[in-house]
């Protein structure tokens, strides 16, 4: 078994005038480890390698990156899923400013998330116990609330690359729909009013890169379609 050849995006603003690709050779002892394990091995070779990681089981959303051309989470991506001809190219998530190596500045991504007011709004006084919700109403939140804010989807989206300041992007819109469709939320009209402009929702061209890369198997395009339907129904 030959060693894995990794080509890694490097950039440290303190020492590098421009980013470059650096080659690493990693001995995985033939095991089908996760890409995150390979990064740990590389960091032992080069202490200065920077990447984010936390849960190492695909629920915290820290280690979104671009692996052989596709966005995903390094911790739940086994080499067998991405490596071709013993080669692995690792780059930061596309379209966001790079802070260092694989660490990107997520500020724009978070700003779009905050813009949709991602919290339940209910203008009625809260009862002494929980608000009731039928299992059928609760089912509508499945496939929406599970988002881990890893940004794999929005940074794979050409519409977000072009207008990251005006297009909410798939992650933000998925969360927007999660609150629009929650039977306990009473701010539906206000939420829709915030999304009516030509950019916030309607920049989505249905390319569906978001669906292809979501590590949690969620479908932002479908949620965006539902928001469009609500906006159109509202307009007529």
């Amino acid at each position: 078994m030959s060693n894995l050849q990794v080509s890694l995006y490097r950039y440290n603003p303190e020492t590098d005038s421009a980013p470059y690709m650096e080659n690493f050779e990693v001995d995985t002892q033939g095991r089908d480890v996760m890409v995150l394990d390979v990064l740990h091995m590389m960091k032992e070779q080069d202490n200065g390698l920077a990447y984010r990681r936390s849960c190492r089981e695909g629920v915290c959303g820290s280690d979104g990156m671009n692996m052989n051309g596709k966005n995903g989470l390094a911790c739940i991506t086994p080499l067998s899923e991405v490596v071709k001809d013993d080669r692995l190219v690792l780059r930061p998530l596309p379209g966001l400013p790079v802070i260092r190596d694989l660490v990107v500045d997520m500020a724009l991504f978070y700003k779009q998330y905050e813009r949709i007011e991602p919290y339940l709004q209910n203008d009625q006084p809260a009862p002494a116990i929980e608000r009731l919700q039928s299992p059928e109403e609760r089912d509508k939140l499945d496939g929406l609330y599970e988002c881990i804010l890893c940004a794999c989807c929005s940074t794979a989206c050409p519409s977000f690359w072009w207008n990251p300041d005006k297009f909410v992007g798939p992650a933000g819109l998925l969360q927007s729909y999660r609150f629009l469709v929650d039977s306990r939320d009473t701010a539906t009209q206000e939420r829709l009013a915030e999304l009516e402009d030509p950019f916030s929702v309607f920049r989505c061209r249905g390319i569906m890169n978001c669906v292809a890369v979501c590590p949690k198997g969620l479908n932002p395009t479908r949620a965006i379609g539902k928001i469009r339907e609500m906006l159109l129904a509202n307009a007529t």
Partner: protein
Amino acid sequence: MSNMRSLTFDAIIIGGGGAGMRAALELAKSGKKTAVLSKVFPTRSHTVSAQGGITCAIASADPNDDWRWHMYDTVKGSDYIADQDAAEYMCSEGPKAVFELEHMGLPFSRFDNGRIYQRPFGGQSKNFGEGGQATRTCAAADRTGHALLHTLYQNNLKNNTTFLNEWYAVDLVKNADGDVVGCIAMDIESGEVVHVKAKATVLATGGAGRIYASTTNALINTGDGIGMALRAGFPMQDMEMWQFHPTGIYGAGTLVTEGCRGEGGYLINKDGERFMERYAPNAKDLAGRDVVARSMVMEILEGRGCGEKGDHVLLKLDHLGEEVLGKRLPGIVELSKTFAHVDPANEPIPVVPTCHYMMGGIPTNVHGQAIMQDGDGNDQIINGLFACGEAACVSVHGANRLGGNSLLDLVVFGRAAGMYIEGALNEGIEYLDASESDVETAMKRITRWNASSDGETVPELKRALQDIMQTSFGVFREEDNMQKGVAQLAELRERIAGAYLPDKSNTFNTARVEALELDNLMEVAEATAIAALERKESRGAHSRYDYPDRDDVNWLKHSMYFPLEKRLGKRDVNFAPRTVDVFEPKIRTY
């Protein structure tokens, strides 16, 4: 020193997990100048990994459920060293805290009548152990921690909480009176080191499972708050008490929720036998976690383990059917496929007891105020210092935590700490400012790492530490092996004191963070080791071959580890709940 920037807050909350964000929410609503300082973006905190649920007597599955039954289970589960006033507070305040979460939008699963879904969990009973298994754990499928953490972050956004995200707290700053008046922290992105001044400093830094080689814990669980408090000279309580979760995925360590067994799954050995029937005839697979973990290790040691090496057992779920798995345990199906390469709808999951939770921590009262002891062994409040969540030891978990009680602990005591601090700030808090030399003391170790020019590197030293803990302080313990472990740790401390940080850059230097974390792992490991060696009995998660019985005469006590003398003392357990009769210690069977 004088050119170091300082930031001033009424309260600084270190840690952006469930406990920290619940405390922050309370303070943000009060209008106090508060910030949450977190080494990761808050939704990357380890609370996100909690699966099965939050245990609380909200009387949804069973309209007759009673928080006193929950309290009884909690005290029994703790092997009687939970403080009964604290367990009483948690279980009685719990419903309020859970309903608040629901009102904030937490997407709980539901019963047909629209109320919050609850499932059975280990160690739960009705009617003080007399009425059979209870169904008390509120769940959002098997992603309850994720749902809870995101809901808390969202509501902090709503209330305009200040976040210092990707900042790392280095050490506490104490003034000349010994009061805690803030901390030294580093902005990870820029590398800038800042003096954060605060009238209240809250350690909500979570657990430290990374002291073990095999753990369900996130890579960030390095006991930063425990390390900071120990370096400041403050004592730790019950640090020998580490929970080994029965079902970590064999090889990977990732957690498989107890909710699997709550939904009807069970453990089998290599003969296909449901062995828990022998160890816990009544509760079977839903006995306390310590009991189940020990039973699994016994099976393995007696040659009935599974696999080529006979070193694990199997968790059988296929009989639940795809609908229950898809609806109630979808995250487990995903994790099993990814990390165990099995689809639980067809095949059992290989599992092994895995380090999961730190029952010990910074001793506090129910308001989150940190406690030390005066010369006569009496409790003494540490001015300015608070703790909540896994970093704290209130203690509601004692020697063994019940499943689903950690999320309840987070929200109840995060909330309580926030409320108390708000009141104290309203009354007015005045402490002496830290002097330049006080600040220099807190800067000592980051200065040391920055000046290091040669020596061993962080990853190899971390591995050595984890191996010592795994080998000498696991599920079963005994004197000689622990003596050896303590000696090895003393030697390792010297090696770490001379260790080397090659990368001295400023921008997002994760190597520096990992070096600083290693110091904290060392503090936690040593406190654990010395406490484990000195507690000469078996109780809850602390099981000794050489002292197999519980010793209520000498050890119905909290242990208190004093870092300056590396000495283990004792502290009385509270047996004085305010509104219910005390639960007297009994033999603990399931």
